């Protein structure tokens, strides 16, 4: 187990050697994640771990991949998707062109869920879905549109609970334990690496998703990232966060209006 002070040393060294700043990540979670990989990889001396991270860029990459939390689901929180289906898509549908951004998309489950909703609403052909993450490994996996077959029962229940009426299994082909989602869903997706800590706004969007990413950041960084989203969002666009996250402490009141009980805000000016 590493000590607090060692964690700070690691953060500083990673910044110095690789330019990546974990300094604004929530310590409680970060420490658990670093301890996890430290133990999994069989380290017993912090110095050994530190020099491995310093001098072996491959190991550094592996460490970053392992300390980011990538757990995700299709149609996670069905009520959230019901609101998108019934209230948001009819509004976005009036636009000639729809731009969406999934920031911290992980292995893509959320992105494919959204593509399914857009397709069912007849909007996918005029949409463009940007999906970004810092973790290159999850992005590679997301591009393939492949998810574990054993999860499909739960996902199809979520889909149904969110108001889905189609046969969920028509969206993928099952093969050797994996579900490969249909290529037409991926046609409008663009995956790329983007770091919310250091990269800037790159387009203007009608809807931005950043769910269960801000929980890993401290208050200061949350504020900065929410303002990055604000800069990237068209007026009357929507910002969606995870069920336990809020923009309340980051944005002047009156600039956004929350939709019912969901963590979705509309930019009104």
């Amino acid at each position, binding site marked *: 187990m590493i000590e607090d002070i060692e964690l700070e040393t690691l953060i500083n060294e990673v910044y110095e050697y690789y330019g990546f700043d974990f300094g604004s990540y929530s310590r409680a979670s970060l420490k*658990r994640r670093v301890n996890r990989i430290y133990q999994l990889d069989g380290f017993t001396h912090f110095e050994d771990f530190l020099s491995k991270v310093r001098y072996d860029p491959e190991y550094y990459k592996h460490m970053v991949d392992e300390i980011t939390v990538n757990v995700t689901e299709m149609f996670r929180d069905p009520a959230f998707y019901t609101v998108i289906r019934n209230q948001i898509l009819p509004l976005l549908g009036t636009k000639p062109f729809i731009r969406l951004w999934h920031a911290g998309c992980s292995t893509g489950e959320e992105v494919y869920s959204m593509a399914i909703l857009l397709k069912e609403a007849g909007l996918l052909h005029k949409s463009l879905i940007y999906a970004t993450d810092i973790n290159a490994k999850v992005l590679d996996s997301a591009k393939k549109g492949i998810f574990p077959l054993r999860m499909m029962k739960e996902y199809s229940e979520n889909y149904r609970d969110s108001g889905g009426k189609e046969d969920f299994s028509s969206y993928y082909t099952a093969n050797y334990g994996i579900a490969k989602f249909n290529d037409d869903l991926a046609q409008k997706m663009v995956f790329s690496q983007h770091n919310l800590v250091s990269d800037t706004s790159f387009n203007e969007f009608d809807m931005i998703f950043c769910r269960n990413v801000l*929980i890993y950041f401290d208050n200061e960084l949350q504020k900065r990232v929410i303002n990055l989203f604000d800069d990237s969002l068209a007026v009357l666009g929507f910002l969606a966060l995870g069920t336990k996250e809020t923009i309340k402490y980051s944005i002047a009141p009156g600039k956004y209006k929350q939709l019912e009980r969901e963590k979705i805000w509309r930019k009104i000016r």
Partner: protein
Amino acid sequence: MEKDQIDPDFSVVIIGGSAGSLNALMQILPHLSEIKSFAIVIVVHRKSTDEQTLEELIALKTIINVKPVEDKVPFLPGFIYIAPSNYHLLFEKNRTLSLDTSEKINYSRPSIDVSFESAAEVYKSNLTGILLSGSNADGTLGLKAIQKEGGTVIIQDPKSAEMPYMPNNAIQNTVPDYILNIKEILQFILSIDN
């Protein structure tokens, strides 16, 4: 390193439970009228869908203010906090709570071990961990961590638990400060403010 910055007038009681623990809580919480010098945190296993109901149920049974837990909420004495479903609940050094969606631990999210270990790191000897009824091994490692940091370890007497497995497992693997039935647990909590 061991520059303990623990807060002299803020202690924490963290209660973990699984199957059968709700009943125990319902026999404890209604008898607490005010908690001045400490906060109560409840981490119980449940299905990811019945979130609101648990908070409402507990809020109905107590006159103490139940604070809904969102990421980075201020963590203060005088309130009850309930770990939301589908997130692990963690403790920051600056008196806030944070959430984490990482892998389930002991088939559970929230996991009792995760919250106990995290609370132990921050609240050290100001922490009391109470483990109630359940049929899962969660909580045992967490109690060990609490003990290691100088906190107090209380385990529900398995004879009084609807599901004795969880308390039994903890008793076999730790050295608890107290093994108490529900009435005695209540007495213990009531005595903290005095």
